[in-house]
């Protein structure tokens, strides 16, 4: 039994890693912009579709451009739409981003059709590794390592670069950052683009595993929200821990109670919120109190 459990934990970590990537972008956008982006899952779907299109026309190396394109789309959306929402009630941003989500899904359906698009892992990443009892595929291991590397890079970027410091300061006190002479609107555009690009990375990595279909965002957005809430709104480390926990708990539930596999993360979220209402690593943020 131990060998099966170890394999399930490995599978859960990979799934959790994808959830972390989606959730981190959502968390960063909420932390700095105060926007609950309901369309975040659709930027994940855009990442998958851009990867597919780039592969079809330019081959595998070009697939890496997919998150960049998603980031550019995200920045354009921020400049034209999201910017109008900063001084509005939170409910307005929920409704507008929900409408944006429907619009992006409809656009994907219009361009690519409702049918799923075939897209599998690159041949050089096909195959499995068997380490003792643990089975993991080459592609999933690559996804996991890429996720770890990205998270470390993102953490270093936030901690050690001037832009990262502006982001962290801006998330706590945007007015003060503005008073220091920093052009916050540009920062906000870049942050929204970065959040969307991270969703795009997750979409690109998930495309060979999930069915590339316009509604694939639905399978991404709810776990992302759950992860952000469990980790604590706006908490980087909280999202990482929560994402991995959700992945592992889901995998272990499949082993013992498969029909509860999708529901278990909500039960876990409820349990965490009962003990820690702000989430695992959530802190008191004055601007959201």
């Amino acid at each position, binding site marked *: 039994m131990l060998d*099966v459990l170890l394999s399930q934990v490995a599978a*859960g970590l990979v799934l959790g890693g994808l959830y972390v990537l989606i959730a981190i972008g959502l968390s960063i956008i909420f932390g700095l912009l105060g926007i609950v982006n309901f369309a975040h899952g659709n930027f994940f779907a855009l990442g998958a579709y851009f990867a597919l299109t780039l592969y079809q026309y330019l081959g595998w190396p070009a697939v890496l451009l997919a998150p960049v394109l998603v980031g550019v789309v995200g920045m354009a959306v921020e400049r034209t739409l999201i910017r109008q929402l900063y001084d509005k009630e939170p409910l307005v941003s929920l409704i507008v981003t929900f409408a944006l989500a429907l619009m992006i899904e409809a656009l994907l359906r219009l361009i690519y059709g409702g049918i*799923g698009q*075939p897209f*599998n892992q690159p041949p050089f990443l096909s195959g499995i590794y068997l380490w003792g009892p643990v089975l993991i595929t080459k592609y999933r291991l690559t996804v996991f390592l890429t996720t770890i590397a990205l998270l470390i890079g993102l953490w270093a970027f936030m901690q050690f670069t001037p832009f990262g410091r502006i982001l962290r300061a801006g998330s706590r006190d945007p007015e003060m950052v503005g008073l220091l002479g920093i052009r916050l609107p540009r920062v906000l555009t870049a942050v929204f683009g970065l959040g969307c690009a991270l969703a795009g990375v997750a979409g690109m990595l998930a495309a060979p595993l999930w069915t590339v*279909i316009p509604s694939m965002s639905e399978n991404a957005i709810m776990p992302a929200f759950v992860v952000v809430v469990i980790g604590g709104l706006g908490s980087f480390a909280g999202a990482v821990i929560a994402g991995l926990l959700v992945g592992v708990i*889901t995998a272990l539930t*499949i082993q013992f109670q498969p029909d509860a*596999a*999708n529901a278990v993360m909500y039960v876990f979220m409820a349990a965490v919120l009962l003990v820690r209402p702000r989430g695992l690593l959530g802190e008191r943020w004055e601007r959201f109190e």
Partner: protein
Amino acid sequence: MNTGKSSLVVPRRQALLGAAAIAAAPLARPFIGYAAAAETIKIGLLLAKTGDIAAQTEYLANGTYLALEERGNKIMGQPAELVWLDEPSPQGSQQNMQKLVQENKVVAILGGSLSSNGLAEQATAAQLKIPFVCNNAAATDMSGKNCNHYTFRLNTPVAVQAAMFAPYLMGYGKKWYFITANYAFGQDIAKSFKEILIKAGGTVVGDDSVPLNTPDYSSFILKIRQAKPDMILGGVPAGDLSTFLKQWNEIGMKGTIPVCEIAIGDTDIWAVGQEAATGLYTSLWWYDNPNNPPDEKAMAADYQKKYGKPAADKAWMGWIAAKSLFESIEQAKSTETEAIIKGLESWKGGTAANPYYWRKGDHQMLLRNLVVQVKPKITDKWDYFDVKGVVPQNVADLEKVFGDPVANGCHMTAT
């Protein structure tokens, strides 16, 4: 001749009359609309517009529209149009069905993309007394204990497909692993096939009930790998099947254990891709089947011409359900509910050697199914299947295979 007046100058009286006409236009609109509505025959289309099932409903809808276009968008010489509303959930579908009848004044409804929606819609059809031709849902109860006078169901019930498919599966061995979705369709598959397997002396070595829209099957696949079954009996619908097969291949399981399922859609397999596709399935129709009758071959050609890709089985299902309804209205020369129902009950399609028709006792379409297998090597991005057989082999066995309506639990009353 120059009259001395500019052509741009409009006399004041005419200007006033024009303005009054524009202002009065909205008052006249309801009467204009009423006149048009009286001449146009409206048919409701109730199919999901979003979600994973939309991959199938796109083809169901295309086939439905094609059936109307083939008739020049006319029924009984009158203009006809389709009014398409969404199927967001069983409850939402019922509300939209009500809207179609009460607001849009449709004379009949086509649709029912998921078993859960179809079951809810057929109950509403009975309440509203409207003919409902279900073109996709496969739950056994639809033409069994839940059957009603107003509902006609095209897809072969799960229990019947299971009985027809089982002989093909026994050759793989009798240790089966079940992976089925935890809603009506999947539960029906698990129940029907388990009964057959146990009766044949087989063993259920694993039985996973899977939530709908599961994005990651790796943990399920690890369990299957450990259980070492002779074959997998699937019951996951649409995009979920595509995801499962992609990950099955990704984990290196393709070719190790056969994957079998009933009532799949071609689109589910097209989405998997040439490298990952595998399995043995039942299907109602295959565009490249040389035995298709001439009108179906013509439909496949029209579809290819219009949409630039082959007609999937779901396109045929949308087309044939709509065609039978339109022809029944035409034959009845009436849009009255009872006349349409009588028309459908006497409608026949296919050829003399291979007919299909709505059975009077339960309004189930009796037709032979195909057993199709994914080709070992796929060279065309659409041509995935080899037709392995037609079930039942003998047309005369259709009634027997589908079972007696009353024995199936259908006790239909006239109204």
